């Protein structure tokens, strides 16, 4: 059995011109899709009424102070759950690029700086952020109480409060976050051309593997050879941690975006973190990361490694949206300015000095990680009785 598998891997590598170990390493970028586990910190995770409530809230601009901004204003389904802008605009300008929420349940930390340690606590932040939706816990409590459909779903998802007016604002805000998280857990991408290639490699099916375009296949080898997979690892192509890849973090006016350095401080000080009173996980396991996370001077200017799935839907790229195309991103890695990488930083990257055809190949590989059907409006779930 084992011998057959090894022979298979060697044979298929030879047939496709892949290097030793490439088959094993490429296979590690799957299988896809992954089924995320229930979030133990959110008792509403997986709850049908909570998912329906979260779906409504996500598209409801009344969640904002002026009734004009919804989550979906920036996370637009048809744009791969992003907004197509370099930097987001809510009530005012935001300093960072809007990330997709596709497959967001697989992440360990949320936001570019990881300032949230759960999907539900991340979801509260834009509601009360004056730049994004500018509302308050009291505003959310009032909305959920005053709208019959929302109130009905809320009662089903979280248990009916004896006196509706008694839902304290903070609890209403947390419930909104947990319902939004339950909904976003269902926003997942499907298979990309790469996944068929990956599965063919795993089965030892050289014929099926050969259907993957040659340029993308060369790009895949280049991706491994360039050590991209050290950070962009696993089925979602991210290690879920933070790095400095030489994207400038000056904001102008003498200000900087300190990235993970601030993110760690914020998550540790966050009243809604997993060490706080709203974590539903009694085992303590979910909070291990928060209890132990540490900022060092290397954290300065580090940002979360993004997933590389569905990039064709989510331009522009990087935490500040500075690159409009994947070609520009690849050129960034090819011409890397080592001066820009923080001196306390890790040593992982070097300018790749790729030829134009190598850049084409790497771009072809990155493009093959997109599920063409991922940028669409999901059906609205209905819950009987509400």
């Amino acid at each position, binding site marked *: 059995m084992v011998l057959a598998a090894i022979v298979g891997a060697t044979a298929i590598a030879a047939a496709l011109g892949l290097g030793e170990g490439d088959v094993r390493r490429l296979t590690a970028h799957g299988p896809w899709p992954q089924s995320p586990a229930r979030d133990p910190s959110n008792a509403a995770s997986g709850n049908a009424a909570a998912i329906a409530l979260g779906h409504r809230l996500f598209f409801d601009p009344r969640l904002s102070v002026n009734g004009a901004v919804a989550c979906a204003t920036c996370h637009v389904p048809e744009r791969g759950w992003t907004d197509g802008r370099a930097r987001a605009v809510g009530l005012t300008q935001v300093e960072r690029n809007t990330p997709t929420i596709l497959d967001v349940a697989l992440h*360990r930390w949320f936001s570019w700086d990881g300032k949230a340690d759960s999907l539900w606590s991340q979801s509260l932040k834009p509601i009360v952020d004056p730049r994004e939706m500018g509302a308050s816990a009291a505003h959310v409590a009032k909305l959920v109480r005053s709208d019959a459909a929302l109130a009905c779903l809320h009662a089903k998802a979280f248990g009916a409060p004896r006196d509706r007016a008694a839902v304290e604002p903070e609890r209403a805000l947390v419930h909104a976050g947990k319902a939004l998280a339950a909904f976003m857990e269902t926003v997942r991408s499907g298979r990309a051309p790469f996944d068929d290639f990956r599965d063919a490699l795993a089965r030892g099916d050289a014929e099926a593997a050969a259907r993957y375009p040659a340029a993308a296949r060369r790009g895949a080898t280049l991706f491994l050879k360039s050590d991209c*997979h*050290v*950070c962009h*690892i*696993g089925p979602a192509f991210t*290690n*879920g*941690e*933070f790095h400095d890849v030489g994207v400038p973090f000056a904001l102008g006016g003498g200000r900087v975006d300190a990235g993970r350095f601030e993110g760690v401080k914020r998550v540790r000080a966050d009243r809604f973190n997993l060490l706080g009173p709203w974590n539903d996980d009694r085992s303590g396991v979910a909070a*291990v*990361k928060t*209890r*132990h*996370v*540490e900022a*060092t001077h*290397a*954290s300065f200017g580090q940002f979360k490694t993004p997933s590389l799935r569905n990039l064709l839907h989510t331009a522009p790229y990087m935490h500040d949206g500075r690159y409009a195309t994947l070609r520009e991103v690849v050129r960034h890695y090819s011409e890397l300015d080592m001066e820009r990488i923080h001196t306390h*930083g*890790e*040593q*992982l990257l070097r300018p790749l000095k790729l030829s134009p055809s190598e850049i084409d190949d790497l771009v072809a590989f990155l493009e093959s990680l997109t599920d063409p059907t991922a940028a669409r409006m999901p059906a609205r779930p209905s819950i009987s009785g509400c």
Partner: protein
Amino acid sequence: MIRAAAVVAGLVASVAIAEACEPPSGFTPRGRLESAGVVVLFRTLPPVIALGRHFSVEAVVCGDGTPPALTRVDARMPEHRHGMNYRPTLASKGGGRYVADGLMFHMPGRWELSFDVEGGGRRTRLATDVVID
């Protein structure tokens, strides 16, 4: 138990430390490190360290004379020049036994797992390689 054994061994002959440092029953060490009269036996929980998953390290420390104390468990990737993004907490369970919680290896490659041991006015660092695929 372990500490008593180590002390006795220390009285008899310090060269015998290596034999005297026995794992407690039910403790199957993943590794044994020895330097300058200090022995560290350790295992991890879970036994297989997975990329991007938190794990704990359980250690038993023995040494010459007064039992040495384990003061820090840490890890680095020397080639990449970075450490972990998490600071482990260390708790003494008595009898030279310790548990470090909250370690996590976030990248594939070679990690150096280190144990700082202090005793008799000396600090010794014992380290071992762990390769994550």
